[in-house]
């Protein structure tokens, strides 16, 4: 944990000449020779002076290794200061002179038995720092003695020495049984010794992730908690960090540990406070929320977190980065503390930026006025990065707190009036988001925005402005002129501007087709002919085909209703957030990256997770992400901010989930395009002309393929659309219907014995968005059956027959008939047990029969169940953890892409995919016919047939059924 070298360096200006510094000044040629003579002098004082000179030379980087034997000779002295200097020299040069280092062994061994404990400790401390294999074996005996030394000072030094030795030769440490001795020291009577033993064990355990080295059980925990009260501040940190790795057995144990840790929040050392916060944040997960103590604990956390902001700036920075995580995990803790995050003029820039971030997270209706006043103040500062972020923050406030939107917009307009270039650009970028969030509300400001068109030189601002012009083309009189002005330098623009311009002009064309034909042709040809950017070209072709084949569909796609943008941005993805909470105070929490992303050799180390909450009862299994060679490096998995979303929309290659991409246009395609150029105008105008390319997609495919997803105009980025795209290029598939929804095989619902000879077997299926009950009716009786009718009892999702049971002909003995009954979900609702139980009554001319059957809940997953990413994140966070349940799917041998495709067939949509350490995490959503959303995180690990699935839903009772559906879909 705390393994770091410490170095002190400085800006050297001028030399100086006083006391010790005189040793630094000798630079003559015969220096080594002279020193040699002095080192061998009889006079103690002279010897000491000589050693000092040697060390001084060493310090400034001169090579004095040649003096090794002479310095070692000075080792046998009873002068402690001299001894320390010689030891220092040894630590530095032993590695380069391993053979000679052996010469020192005897003295070490002897010193380890010196009556003076300072010398014993010094010897054992130094020996551990000499990283020479040959020496280590001689170290074992002295170390063993020192671990049992009567003086705690020696024992605590020896404890650390075990960790040092383990670093050099782990096997040796294990063989010699030092680990057990170290474990025994946890029960030592002296708190310093306990603390160092804990530190050493934690350190060793880190390189042996699977060993049960720190065998934490309630007894050891108790010992640690006792030592916590007595040891030094640093020892307290070691112990707290170690405690954080423990998972209490139940909520009562969790609470009792919390109670004993909370006093640490009053420690003056910020690091102690943060480590205590880590333990509390983690163990709090296990406490039931209705417990009084839970509320008390939440209240206790706020003041110390606020006080951390009075620490030194670097510590403030660490604290702020951590508060950022804490606020995301438990917003309630600091919701009333907005003011303390107000930026001070003299805060360092890194503190300012972090405070700003937290201010936005805490912004709410209650404090928005103050926040906005502050942000406006910041936006007139001079530091560019800070100002930009402040402007962006104003936009985020508008989106987050609806009541403030108007005020935010007018603040932004004020800022645009300042004409400070980067302020204007930043403001335009955020105004675009505000338009998205509140369509048709603030368009009056467009005129002001257009005035600033010329000053925009940053791609993001240009793209945002172009988007605005395209989106509101019908209200901007000279929209065509404005867009045309951008077109002149088309090839000098960045990709995001090009893509946006393409889309905007197509929008313009769809809105004002008569005046803008030329413009749209121009941009399409620029995009498809003159660009070598595949994304741009592909999008160009897509628009072109859409326009040429079915302008109505084109309108539906390009001018589709946009999904809402979510309030929260820059949220850290939930699993990563959980992991980071377990790393509070460490570098990981500062970088907001998992340790595996920046520490070499940490692969295969377990990812830490928060313990499950008391309610769910499911034990959380830490994913064992050990093996898996050739894993892709985990990207810093921060979900893109709103700003990036635009990029996402624009950049096809950012598309995370599916792997299916459209085949690159072949040369035949190019030909088609050429043809289009010639005769395409008619088709652009909407005439039903024959598509030119032979294999161009027909309109029905378009409609179906593009219509389904709720996603906006750049139709190519949602998963189901890829299918639609394929259809575009290959008409063979026919209608772009979501195929392959899973349907279980038929089972016997009503045996003949129970129904006077009528046997019914059946299943459910969802075909083309319609739920169907598919039945086989068999007459096993002796007489003819007629007059069939069917009725459902009330059920959980209001399933009801959409029409009468169509058995037209009488059913003769030994005859079977297949019947398909379409269902709807508008029937009366009553909660059933199990949830997916359906009670059916079937009547014929003989009698009425009752049976019950269970339908797979996946039948109820609707086609537009794909949640927008940002919404997904916000929803995931919003749903309380108690509603989360975890399941294991065993023996499934699909890889994640195959699984994702398969699930999609059943309207389980993958929204994002992340790969960490060979483990794929699929984030999925589905929507039930009654509007209930279910969010899922599916973990798939290469080579491991067991999947883990976490489901979150506001109606947690559906989870079990959803899980069953997953299992059924994946295994069939």
């Amino acid at each position, binding site marked *: 944990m705390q393994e770091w070298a410490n170095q002190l360096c400085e800006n050297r200006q001028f030399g100086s000449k006083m006391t*010790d510094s005189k040793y630094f000044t000798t630079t003559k040629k015969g220096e080594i020779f002279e020193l040699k003579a002095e080192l061998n002098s009889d006079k103690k004082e002279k010897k000491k002076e000589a050693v000092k000179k040697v060390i001084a030379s060493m310090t400034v980087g001169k090579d004095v290794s040649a003096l090794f034997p002479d310095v070692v000779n000075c080792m046998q002295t009873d002068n402690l200061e001299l001894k320390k200097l010689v030891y220092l020299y040894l630590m530095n040069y032993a590695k380069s002179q391993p053979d000679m280092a052996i010469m020192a062994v005897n003295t070490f061994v002897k010193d380890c038995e010196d009556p003076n404990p300072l010398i014993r400790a010094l010897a054992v401390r130094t020996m551990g720092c000499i990283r020479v294999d040959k020496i280590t074996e001689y170290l074992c005996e002295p170390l063993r003695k020192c671990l049992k030394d009567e003086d705690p000072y020696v024992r*605590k030094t020896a404890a650390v020495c075990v960790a040092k030795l383990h670093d050099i030769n782990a096997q040796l440490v294990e063989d010699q049984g030092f680990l057990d001795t170290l474990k025994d020291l946890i029960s030592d009577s002296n708190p310093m010794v306990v603390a160092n033993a804990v530190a050493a064990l934690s350190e060793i355990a880190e390189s042996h992730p699977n060993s049960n080295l720190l065998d934490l059980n309630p007894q050891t925990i108790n010992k640690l908690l006792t030592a916590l009260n007595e040891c030094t501040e640093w020892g307290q940190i070691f112990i707290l960090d170690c405690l954080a790795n423990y998972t209490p057995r139940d909520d009562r144990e969790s609470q009792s540990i919390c109670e004993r840790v909370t006093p640490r929040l009053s420690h003056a050392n910020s690091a102690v406070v943060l480590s205590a916060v880590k333990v509390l944040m983690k163990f709090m997960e296990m406490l039931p929320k209705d417990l009084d103590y839970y509320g008390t604990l939440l209240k206790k956390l706020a003041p110390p977190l606020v006080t951390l902001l009075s620490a030194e700036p670097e510590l403030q920075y660490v604290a702020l980065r951590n508060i950022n995580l804490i606020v995301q995990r438990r917003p309630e803790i600091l919701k009333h503390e907005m003011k303390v995050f107000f930026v001070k003029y003299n805060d360092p820039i890194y503190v300012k930026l972090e405070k700003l971030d937290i201010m936005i997270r805490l912004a709410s209706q209650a404090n928005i006025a103050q926040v906005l006043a502050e942000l406006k103040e910041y936006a007139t500062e001079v530091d560019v990065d800070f100002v930009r972020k402040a402007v962006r923050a104003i936009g985020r406030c508008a989106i987050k707190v609806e009541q403030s939107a108007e005020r935010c917009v007018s603040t932004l307009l004020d800022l645009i009036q300042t004409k400070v270039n980067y302020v204007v650009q930043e403001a335009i970028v955020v105004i675009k988001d505000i338009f998205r969030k509140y369509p048709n509300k603030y368009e009056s400001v467009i005129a002001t925005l257009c005035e600033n068109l010329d000053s925009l030189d940053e791609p993001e601002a240009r793209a945002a402005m172009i988007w605005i012009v395209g989106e509101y083309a019908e209200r901007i009189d000279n929209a065509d002129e404005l867009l045309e002005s951008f077109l002149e330098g088309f090839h000098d623009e960045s990709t995001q501007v090009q893509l946006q311009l393409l889309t905007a002009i197509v929008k313009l064309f769809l809105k004002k087709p008569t005046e803008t034909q030329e413009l749209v042709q121009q941009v399409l040809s620029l995009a498809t002919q003159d660009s070598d950017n595949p994304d741009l070209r592909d999008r160009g072709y897509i628009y072109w085909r859409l326009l040429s084949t079915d302008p109505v569909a084109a309108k539906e796609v390009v001018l589709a209703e946009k999904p809402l943008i979510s309030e929260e941005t820059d949220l850290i993805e939930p699993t990563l957030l959980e992991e980071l909470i377990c790393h509070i105070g460490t570098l990981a929490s500062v970088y907001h990256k998992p340790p595996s992303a920046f520490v070499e050799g940490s692969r295969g180390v377990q990812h830490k997770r928060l313990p499950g909450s008391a309610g769910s009862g499911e034990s959380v299994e830490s994913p064992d992400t050990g093996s898996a060679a050739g894993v892709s490096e985990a990207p810093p998995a921060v979900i893109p901010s709103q700003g990036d979303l635009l990029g996402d929309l624009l950049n096809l290659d950012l598309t995370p989930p599916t792997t299916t991409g459209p085949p690159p246009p072949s040369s035949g395609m190019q030909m088609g395009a050429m043809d289009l150029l010639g005769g395409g105008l008619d088709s652009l105008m909407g005439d039903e002309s024959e598509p030119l390319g032979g294999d161009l997609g027909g309109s029905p495919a378009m409609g179906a393929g593009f219509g389904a997803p709720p996603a906006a105009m750049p139709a190519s980025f949602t998963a189901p659309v890829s299918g639609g795209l394929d259809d575009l290029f290959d008409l063979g598939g026919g209608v772009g219907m979501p195929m392959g929804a899973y349907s279980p095989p038929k089972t016997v619902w009503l045996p003949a014995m129970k129904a006077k000879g009528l046997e019914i077997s059946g299943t459910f299926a969802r075909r083309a968005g319609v739920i169907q009950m598919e039945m086989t009716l068999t007459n096993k009786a002796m007489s003819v059956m007629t007059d069939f009718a069917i009725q459902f009892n009330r059920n959980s999702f209001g399933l009801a027959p959409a029409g009468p049971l169509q058995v037209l002909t009488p059913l003769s003995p030994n005859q079977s008939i297949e019947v398909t009954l379409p269902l709807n979900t508008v029937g009366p609702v009553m909660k059933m047990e199990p949830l997916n139980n359906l009670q059916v009554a079937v009547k014929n001319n003989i009698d009425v029969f009752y049976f019950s059957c269970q339908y797979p809940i996946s039948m109820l997953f609707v086609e537009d169940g794909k949640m927008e990413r940002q919404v997904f994140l916000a929803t995931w966070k919003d749903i309380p953890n108690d509603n989360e349940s975890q399941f294991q799917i065993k023996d499934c041998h699909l890889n994640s892409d195959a699984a994702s495709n398969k699930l999609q067939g059943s309207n389980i949509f993958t929204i994002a995919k992340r790969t960490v350490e060979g483990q794929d995490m699929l984030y999925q959503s589905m929507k039930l016919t009654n509007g209930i959303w279910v969010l899922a995180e599916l973990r798939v690990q290469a080579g491991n047939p067991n999947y883990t699935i976490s489901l979150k839903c506001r109606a947690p009772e559906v989870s079990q059924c959803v899980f069953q559906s997953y299992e059924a879909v994946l295994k069939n």
Partner: protein
Amino acid sequence: MAQISKIFNLHVLICRNYKGDVDMAEIDHFMPLLMQHEEEGLICPVMSHGSVHFMWIKHSNLYLVATTNKNSNASLVYSFLYKLVEVFTEYFKELEEESIQDNFVVVYELLDELMDFGFPQTTDSKILQEYITQEGAKLEVAKTKVPTTVTNAVSWRSEGIKYKKNEVFIDVIESINVLVNANGSVMSSDIVGSIKLKTMLSGMPELRLGLNDRVLFALTGRDKGKTVVMEDVKFHQCVRLSRFESDRTISFIPPDGESELMSYRINTHVKPLIWIESVIEKFSHSRVEIMVKAKGQFKKQSVANNVEVRVPVPSDADSPKFKTSTGNAKYVPEKNLVVWTIKSFPGGKEFLMRAHFGLPSVENDEMEGKPPITVKFEIPYFTVSGIQVRYMKIIEKSGYQALPWVRYITQSGDYQLRTNV
């Protein structure tokens, strides 16, 4: 923000490699990295180069840099670096290049004692001074045994301390932090209090400090007199935290000499003790006119001492002229400030200062920030929060009588008033 930094010939002054897992040469990347960040205006206390992470602080012209390649506890690292500064400062008075060079032997010794294998050890400089001293001659005798304090549960006080007269001095110091907006509304205000001890007591005394803490009063069912709600309390290592947590008793064995026993924060709305109204009018290309009114918003009996009102002026201002109703105004061009000093400022009084500066006709096109007006002051015999030391019980087994002395001071902390210009 970024200033032009002078180019120094960086060199490593002293270095202690505790673990051997980070290459010593890595530090060579530090300075270029820092300069690069500075140029981009994005200095950050954590920087990384390859797999090595640098955590640094700056003290006068020294950089103290910790390097690691693991997921280290960052808050521990910074706490430790500041502790290093504290220990070195106590040892050498000033921590700077010269003092390190002059004492490199002791510095090495200290680095060894302060941290082992990356684990901070004993960092209490009073205790360290018992066995790591600067004069070699004295060492021989003193160093023959480890002070038990090093590993004791009481790691901050040695045994056998003797004083002829047993006394303890208690300073209650409250700093007022205020942030006032340009329109005169108080954006945020809080009180950061600190109780400092100067202990001159023999033996191992047990001390108990009684404050008019509202939580304590509520616990004990007493409700007489004024009480104070402390938002967050931080204690010196010596205070028994679990005891405080359970019954709010502040009990401890004090370190010898000077120490900060505790600090607290009070979040109540404080009326700014010295209120400033300012009118700053900038006439481009010609002049700046400043009018500042300062008002003492505290009791008439109290007096604020050494009041300094610091008013920012444009960096290209020249030919200052001042007029004050009391005190002295001075132009400090290197800080772009007018400093108005009032030695003694009685409560309820109001003073005025006018300043006039010329501005060059060619304007400085660099954008300047809007630094706030800041105020410094000190008001003795008074605390804003009304906190009081009710008692200090001192019990030592020898049974001596000891006298506690209490002193109260209120002073300015981070006291900023934003301006319109």
